[in-house]
């Protein structure tokens, strides 16, 4: 296996030398192509020349572009080029610099250089006689105008070139013969190339050789035949007598001639549209196409296969997939692997989406593995080559493509495309099932709705981030019923009834030990229907095993209503097993898990499965990262069932995993609108005291300040603000000094008050109320959008009072009372203005049904200006003018429309109808309102586009603040900082945390000419102005899956810096790498290993699972899990594998002074999910450091315009105060009943996670939580009634926190908890 490089195919296999050169004149050809399909045409052409020519012979060496990454291959390539006569290159959009580096020095001495569509730098190498492209800009060259007009954007570059090929012969007629000759030669060569067959390539080579190498006619026979070509685009079927150029003709042939011979009824069979590349057809490298077409036809489908030679595949779709304006295909499969419009160059996604929306059918984009050989893909744990993932998985996703199935690959020896039979079968069956959705009547369709249970416990059935799952399912069922689905006679009439039906009886359910059993599968049936069952025995023993079983049979939990099944996805099964949690690679699914999906596919025979909410575990089962094989568990489990997946709009990264690994078509749902956390209890009192201080600061200032200080102390604010000691009388202070104290407390209070808090849970298909829309718009209005040249309202208002907003923030942070007040006033004014703007669109029911123009009657109304303006004036901002507001509120109007438009339920019904789901970005609707309206098939971003320049700017600010704070506290720069990188964060922020790492080591990322960030340069120390700080980067498994190219960038940056000859006190990366090189006996470059993640196909440190389960032994276990599971290093020098480098990981962590994480959105904060503490290395570092010192821990909070760097403890306190302890939060949750109680318990557990991994939780947090939820009897009762299982878990968590030494409290409290535990437990167990 490839030693870590991605492709090990050998260019030597491609070398052609004449067997018997005799005294023939030899010319030498070197080629580099992206498309391996040219390889066999070129080889055959050369062999034909050598067999057929009497006076000349050819020697040829060829390279597949990707092979140039291997240094040995690259050296050989340079040698080959050095004595070549002719160079040919095609589609070089990657590695352009390498090709130029090798070819440029010999360009002059070569006889001809022919480069077909590629990066401009490579195109400029072209040289055919006098024809060049290097002289662009000076001569009146035909190509010149073409190149100028066709800057590589959209598809115009490709298409323009092709158009030119077609029209050029006519143009050339009008040019003087001599001058046009060489240009004509180039264009002829291109035509031969596009023709692609061995005959065409032979003619191309001989033509160039006779004219430019030998400059005389030495050729045997008639060689300069005109290129033989098939039409630029058409409909091609392997059995058809010819290529068709209209679909009427093809359909006639298909229905009348072909369908009968394959035994298919054309009136009933689904029609699968297939998009092909012309170059595979004209080079006859079509075995993989033929295989899929046969497979579809053998499965009872008809095929409409279209091709084009251009890279705009939307054109043949427009031309051939419609008849009389209606779609004639039921599903489309793009077999090119490219984005629909633009191929490997530059894409035009809106154009692609417009075509696909018009077609309105599922759009699958299957991938031929072209950057690695077939064997390499099969053997690789990573699966598909990352460059190809970026090009042929991530970019098609932006078009709304689903199901990136690797259907074919390249044979290592011949370069021919070969199909993978089992993948072809999967693809064909899946396409047919998608097609059935549009053919079948709703009444006949069977749908399996799958809910999750995390952690596996009755109290957690229906877990999903921010989603009221059962409420949403209830709504979905109502809608489906109205659409004609058969839901049987016993559909519950309310949500409670639905919950009961699944849980059996959730209260003294209690009496029934298990969930409702929908199906009981005998072991014999299970084995017969689950071909891979035997493979699970290695981990789980023989079936039925211990999980989801009654000891005899495998049990499928759930309930069936008519044709709709609601089932509970089984758990991973190893949550409580310390050994399994420690495994570097995750265990296979257990028998019960497999039985669940076998039931859906083979027993229920579902037409579609609907996974309900973020997220389950199917897509996290072991297997390749991207590009599943038939041995990967997600593929084995989902089989051929179309997968619709409701996914939270703010989590595009994990949604992407679901799309790629479990073939999900996601439907985004809105997270609840965020409101301000507000103040409560003591904090509220402090707030009120501060208000009264403003009026009375001179008369009664001191006594009020004394009260403020005392109350603040009861709220534990002394942990955050430097308060005078308890018995100190502030009367001894000056007015200014008192102001500072009040200002600082106020600043802290306001930080809590204005923290955004998602309120309650979302129900699918319920658009936000006007109030909720206002909350969202306020946040949108508060952000500057420099890319759209829109200033946020805070900036506008600050400017109107002659201030700079940053200046106000800075001064307020420092405790300046006036600026704290001003800052507050600005916030109030924003709320008032936005409220005024939405008011005219709000109906009597408090909803926005129609958005009216916000600025319409601008200024017209009696000189009063817009309603926003008057709202602002009322708040005291009377210098603002309407023109200042126009741009912002124009934007907000657009946003309001997005906010209230809702297609969540619509997209589900459309998906079940076999229609196309519109794609859209996932992320934070506040940062990127294009995330709205929800109901979209979510995608991440072009992974090569990050980090953006804006992200780099923000990163620099945060890093500088972090270093500033650390230097202020410790007196020196930290030598090393541990980072955690998350997929979603980097999508939302366009790579901010990625850029932070680069800035820390002092490296600047650079884009290439297509804007793809793939280069780096070291920032000189003088410019950096500080030492280079070392890093240890722990990437989440999801980040690794999405951004492996960026891991490459980071590793290159670290290695680059480690190898700089700089003083060690100015370059800590080098300092540490030198030490480690010595310690491990390796090179400095290898010692500079700082980018880590999980093993391929494995996710998380499993610390979260252990904490949720409670069955962990001690912190030592958690730390071992972290270092063994996360200790897999990425190495840019061997990018194909992740090496187990736990030793290097520990050695680097040992040197860490600071641990650091980023927080990018308030709705996924430190205690909302287990991810953050799962990956936090704080205690790990503490135990590894030789001095035993706990590192400083910081969190960068960019959730608000005024970004902050806080300590981890400060952030945990802030989170606890705004959520777990905040009545606004828990009362909001309790409104959602069963799920709400669980959400509260989850926050408490996650809080304890921070005690376990970072020791970052203050005692008062547990104490206060106990007061709120346990000491209050009424609250106790409410929790117990709504969700007894979750309440028991809460009681357990308190006891556990105490038992593990994280919470010291009174015996009274503990007694109460112990007693409660016994009571609840008895009740649940039905005693």
């Amino acid at each position: 296996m490839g030693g870590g490089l991605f492709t090990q195919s050998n260019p030597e296999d491609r070398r052609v030398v004449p067997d018997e050169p005799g005294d023939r004149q030899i010319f030498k050809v070197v080629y580099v192509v992206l498309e391996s399909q040219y390889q066999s045409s070129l080889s055959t052409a050369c062999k034909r020349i050598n067999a057929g020519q009497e006076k000349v012979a050819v020697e040829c060496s060829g390279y597949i572009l990707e092979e140039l990454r291997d240094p040995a291959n690259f050296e050989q390539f340079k040698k080959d080029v050095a004595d070549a006569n002719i160079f040919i290159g095609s589609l070089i959009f990657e590695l352009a610099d390498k090709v130029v580096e090798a070819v440029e020095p010999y360009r002059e001495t070569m006889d001809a250089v022919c480069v077909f569509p590629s990066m401009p730098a490579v195109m400029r190498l072209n040289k055919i006689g006098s024809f060049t492209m290097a002289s662009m800009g000076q001569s009146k060259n035909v190509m010149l105008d073409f190149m100028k007009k066709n800057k590589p954007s959209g598809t115009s570059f490709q298409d323009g070139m092709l158009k030119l090929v077609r029209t050029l012969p006519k143009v050339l007629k009008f040019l003087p013969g001599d001058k046009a000759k060489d240009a004509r030669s180039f264009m002829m060569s291109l035509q031969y190339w596009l023709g692609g067959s061995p005959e065409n390539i032979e003619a191309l080579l001989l033509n160039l050789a006779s004219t430019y190498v030998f400059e005389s006619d030495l050729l045997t026979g008639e060689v300069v035949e005109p290129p033989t070509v098939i039409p630029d685009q058409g409909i091609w079927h392997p059995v058809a007598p010819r290529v068709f150029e209209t679909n009427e003709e093809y359909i006639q042939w298909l229905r009348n001639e072909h369908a009968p011979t394959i035994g298919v009824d054309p009136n009933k069979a689904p029609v699968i549209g297939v998009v092909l590349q012309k170059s595979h057809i004209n080079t006859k490298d079509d075995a993989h196409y033929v295989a899929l077409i046969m497979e579809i036809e053998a499965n009872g489908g008809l095929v409409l296969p279209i091709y084009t030679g251009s890279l705009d595949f939307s054109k043949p779709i427009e031309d051939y997939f419609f008849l009389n304006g209606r779609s004639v295909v039921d599903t489309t499969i793009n077999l090119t692997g490219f984005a629909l419009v633009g191929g490997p160059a530059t894409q035009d996604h809106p154009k692609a989406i417009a075509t696909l929306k018009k077609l309105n059918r599922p759009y699958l984009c299957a991938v031929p593995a072209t950057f690695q050989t077939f064997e390499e893909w099969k053997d690789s744990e990573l699966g598909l080559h990352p460059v190809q993932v970026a090009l042929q998985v991530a970019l098609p996703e932006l078009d709304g493509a689903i199901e990136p199935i690797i259907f074919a690959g390249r044979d290592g020896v011949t370069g021919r495309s070969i199909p993978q039979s089992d993948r072809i079968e999967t693809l064909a069956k899946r396409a047919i099932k998608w097609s059935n959705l549009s053919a079948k009547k709703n009444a006949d369709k069977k749908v399996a709705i799958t809910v999750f249970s995390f952690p596996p416990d009755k109290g957690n059935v229906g877990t999903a981030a921010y989603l009221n799952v059962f409420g949403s399912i209830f709504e979905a069922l109502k809608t489906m019923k109205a659409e004609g689905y058969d839901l049987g006679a016993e559909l519950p009439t309310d949500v409670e009834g639905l919950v009961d039906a699944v849980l059996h009886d959730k209260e003294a359910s209690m009496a029934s030990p298990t969930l409702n059993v929908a199906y009981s599968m005998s072991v014999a049936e299970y084995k017969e229907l689950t071909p891979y069952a035997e493979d699970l025995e290695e981990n789980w023993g023989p079936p039925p095993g211990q999980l989801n079983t009654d000891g005899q049979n495998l049990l499928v939990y759930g309930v069936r209503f008519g044709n709709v099944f609601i089932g509970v996805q089984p758990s991973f099964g190893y949550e409580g097993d310390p050994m399994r949690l420690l495994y570097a690679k995750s265990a296979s699914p257990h028998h019960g898990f497999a039985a669940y999906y076998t039931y859906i596919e083979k027993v229920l025979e579902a037409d579609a499965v609907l996974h309900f909410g973020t997220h389950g575990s199917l897509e996290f089962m072991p297997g390749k990262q991207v590009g599943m094989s038939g041995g990967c568990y997600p593929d084995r489990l989902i089989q051929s069932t179309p997968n619709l997946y409701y996914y939270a709009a703010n989590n595009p990264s994990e949604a992407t995993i679901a799309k790629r690994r479990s073939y999900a078509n996601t439907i985004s749902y809105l997270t609840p609108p965020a409101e301000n956390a507000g103040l409560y209890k003591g904090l509220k009192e402090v707030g009120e005291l501060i208000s009264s201080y403003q009026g009375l600061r001179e008369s009664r200032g001191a006594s009020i300040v004394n009260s403020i200080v005392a109350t603040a102390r009861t709220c534990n604010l002394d942990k955050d603000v430097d308060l005078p000691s308890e018995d100190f009388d502030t009367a001894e202070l000056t007015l200014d000094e008192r102001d500072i104290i009040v200002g600082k407390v106020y600043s802290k209070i306001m930080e809590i008050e204005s923290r955004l808090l998602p309120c309650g849970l979302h129900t699918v298909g319920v658009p936000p109320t006007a109030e909720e829309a206002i909350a969202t718009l306020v946040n949108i209005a508060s952000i500057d959008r420099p890319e759209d040249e829109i200033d946020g309202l805070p900036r506008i208002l600050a400017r109107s009072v002659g201030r700079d907003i940053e200046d106000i923030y800075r001064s307020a942070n420092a405790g300046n009372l006036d600026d704290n007040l001003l800052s507050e006033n600005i916030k109030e004014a924003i709320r008032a203005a936005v409220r005024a703007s939405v008011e005219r669109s709000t109906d009597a029911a408090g909803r926005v049904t129609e958005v009216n123009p916000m600025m319409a009657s601008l200024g017209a109304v009696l000189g009063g200006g817009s309603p926003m303006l008057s709202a602002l004036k009322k708040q005291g901002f009377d210098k603002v003018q309407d023109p200042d507001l126009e741009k912002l509120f124009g934007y907000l109007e657009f946003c309001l429309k997005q906010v209230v438009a809702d297609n969540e339920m619509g997209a589900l019904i459309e998906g079940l109808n076999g229609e196309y789901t519109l794609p859209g970005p996932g992320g934070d609707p506040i940062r990127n309102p294009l995330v709205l309206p929800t109901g979209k098939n979510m995608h991440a971003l072009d992974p090569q586009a990050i980090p953006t320049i804006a992200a780099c700017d923000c990163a620099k600010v945060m890093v500088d603040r972090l270093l500033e704070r650390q230097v202020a506290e410790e007196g020196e720069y930290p030598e090393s900082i541990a980072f955690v990188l998350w997929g979603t964060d980097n999508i939302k922020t366009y790579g901010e945390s990625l850029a932070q790492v680069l800035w820390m080591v002092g490296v600047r990322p650079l884009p290439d000419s297509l804007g793809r960030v793939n280069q780096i340069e070291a920032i000189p120390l003088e410019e950096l102005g500080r030492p280079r700080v070392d890093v240890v980067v722990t990437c989440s498994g999801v980040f690794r899956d999405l951004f492996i190219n960026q891991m490459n960038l980071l590793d290159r940056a670290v290695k680059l810096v480690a190898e700089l000859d700089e003083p060690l006190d100015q370059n800590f990366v080098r300092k540490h790498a030198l030490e480690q090189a010595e310690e491990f006996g390796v090179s400095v470059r290898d010692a500079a290993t700082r980018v880590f993640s999980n093993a391929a196909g494995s996710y998380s440190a499993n610390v979260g699972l252990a904490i949720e389960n409670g069955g962990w032994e001690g912190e030592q276990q958690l730390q071992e899990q972290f270092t063994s599971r996360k200790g897999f290093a990425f190495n840019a020098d061997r990018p194909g594998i992740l090496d187990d480098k736990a030793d290097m990981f520990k050695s680097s962590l040992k040197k860490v002074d600071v641990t650091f994480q980023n927080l990018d959105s308030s709705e996924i904060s430190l205690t909302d999910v287990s991810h953050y503490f799962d990956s936090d290395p704080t205690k790990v570092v503490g135990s590894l450091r030789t001095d035993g010192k706990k590192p400083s821990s910081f969190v960068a909070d960019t959730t608000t315009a005024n970004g902050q760097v806080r300590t981890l403890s400060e952030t945990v306190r802030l989170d606890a105060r705004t959520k777990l302890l905040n009545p606004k939060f828990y009362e909001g949750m309790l409104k959602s009943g069963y799920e709400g109680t669980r959400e509260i318990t989850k926050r408490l557990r996650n809080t304890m996670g921070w005690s376990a991994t970072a020791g970052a939780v203050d005692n008062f947090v547990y104490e206060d939580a106990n007061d709120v939820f346990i000491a209050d009897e009424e609250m106790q009762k409410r929790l117990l009634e709504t969700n007894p299982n979750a309440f028991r878990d809460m009681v357990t968590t308190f006891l556990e926190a105490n038992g593990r030494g994280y919470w010291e409290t009174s015996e009274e409290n503990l007694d109460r908890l112990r007693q409660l535990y016994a009571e609840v437990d008895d009740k649940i167990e039905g005693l």
Partner: protein
Amino acid sequence: MTTAAALVTLGLAFTAPASRLAPPRVSSARMMCAAVMPETPPALESDCGFDHVPLSIALQSGDFLEADQITRDALIKLAGDSAVSRGYVYFAEVPNLPEADLATIERLWLAYSGGKFGYSVQVKALQSKKVNNNLEKLFDKIGWRNEKGQLLRWLPEKANNEFIYELDAAPEGHLPLTNTLRGQQLITALFKHPVWARDEFQ
């Protein structure tokens, strides 16, 4: 015209020289592996006047490599002109392959291999309890896969051809080869042909 179809499994497509379709040179210099000699030569029947003599000669002389090639070429020709110009058999053409000719081909293979080679041998293996109609398992059983689990390569240069053409050395059912380069529908259709169910092949 090519016999690009005549390649097997995950090997590769290749344009074989047209001479492949010519009758075999009986006095081939190839190393032969003695064929089994039946008491009476099998009857050469055809529904369409197809010449089965070349196959018969190749098998008699123990040239199983040649016989294998002739067999695949024969299927293409028997499938009709469009298959010949295409260079391979489309799965939907298989049911229409003339039964008498397939039976003749099978008879010849069985006779000269002592019942070791032949489509019906492969079909029986496929239907065996252990293989249970799973093609992947069949490939293991008839030796089409190497120890690494990869399918063997068929290459026109004999030296690179990984299949076994010696009667003694080859596993049961190893020949004749059927191309799976274009997926498994061709071989699936071929195995479903009713001719293999004839009594004479049981």
